[in-house]
């Protein structure tokens, strides 16, 4: 009986067009499973057994990536209701809470995901440092990682303003005043970031575009480089 169901589900052209081989029960099929799929671009066919040990990495980098993925999905969904306008933004937060189905849950997931990501990226960096994983030939990838950390902060910060509540407004006001303290270019840079002299509609739309377009694209590209470099640099750093 089970066999029959199995046959119907797995032994048809559609399934086979998607999954080109059967259950990877032996080493060859297992290799093929990776090689004939997207995974090859991320993972090698074979890896060291000790790299599998959880204590080696604590999975921090991967968790950071998963969080980024969840943030992308929830963020895109949230964009369907969010209007970056000073008269509407806050009202949209209330709409999400009170009137939109699953709106509050998505907002919660996005918010907590964002906070977690900042923490996780930092922890990931600590992990790499304490295991000396940045050494040759991974110097460049470490640099990419540091920049990704800065980008994460920037993503989180730009998202912070979007609800247009008191928390957002004053936190951003303080941060842009920080920018003003930069030598020489401080005033001009602040003018550019805020799009004026006060945190208002211009700042909101600028932060919005940075948050949903510019920074996610940049981070996606950097993550691609980061992952590709991991493979090219020979996977996890391990003692020689």
């Amino acid at each position: 009986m089970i066999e029959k169901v199995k046959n119907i589900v797995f032994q048809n052209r559609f399934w086979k067009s998607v999954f080109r081989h059967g259950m990877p029960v032996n080493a060859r099929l297992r290799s093929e499973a990776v090689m004939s799929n997207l995974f090859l671009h991320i993972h090698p066919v074979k890896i060291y057994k000790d790299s599998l040990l959880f204590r080696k990495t604590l999975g921090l980098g991967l968790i950071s990536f998963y969080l980024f993925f969840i943030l992308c999905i929830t963020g895109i969904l949230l964009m369907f209701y969010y209007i970056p306008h000073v008269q509407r933004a806050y009202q949209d937060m209330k709409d999400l809470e009170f009137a939109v189905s699953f709106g509050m849950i998505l907002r919660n997931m996005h918010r907590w995901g964002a906070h977690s990501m900042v923490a996780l990226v930092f922890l990931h960096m600590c992990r790499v440092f304490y295991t000396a994983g940045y050494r040759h030939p991974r110097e460049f990838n470490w640099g990419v990682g540091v920049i990704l950390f800065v980008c994460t902060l920037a993503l989180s910060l730009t998202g912070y303003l979007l609800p247009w509540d008191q928390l957002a407004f004053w936190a951003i006001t303080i941060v842009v005043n920080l920018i003003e303290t930069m030598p020489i270019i401080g005033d001009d840079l602040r003018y550019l970031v805020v799009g004026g002299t006060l945190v208002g509609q211009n700042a909101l739309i600028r932060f919005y575009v940075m948050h949903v377009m510019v920074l996610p694209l940049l981070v996606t590209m950097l993550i691609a480089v980061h992952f590709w470099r991991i493979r090219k640099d020979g996977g996890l750093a391990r003692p020689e």
Partner: protein
Amino acid sequence: MSSEHDRRDFLTYLGWFATLGTFGGISVASARYMVPNILYEPPKSYKIGKPQDYPEGVNFLPDKRIFVVNNGGNYKVISAVCTHMGCTPRWIAEKDRWECPCHGSIFNNKGVVIGGPAPKPLPWYEVTLGSDNKLFVNEDRIVPFSQVLTIAA
């Protein structure tokens, strides 16, 4: 050995089943999320005040773009949006018909096109008398010309 293998296989299927359930469910929930529960639009059904507010004849309500026709205590409501290009036709009392200023569509007193480019007659909307004695128009319900709301004077 074999039964052990089967049991683990079965468990794996269960796992995939739960996974499918979750992510399928999340997709459904996301689809539900996309359906707006509230609209920022003028309502399609609304009150237009007491019948007595509308004198005999054709009364234009610019806010709602409707005509309220009072024919001796028989109330009817017709759209004031020309079916051609969406201009507002004018009621010409002497000729007993609507004429659209934009492209010259002409509708007779039943809302039927008798001239000009308009493709469809003007729709009559359902009008009822609410429990608070006010006229209630529902644009979602289009009624035939013969349906009138009769209010005893």
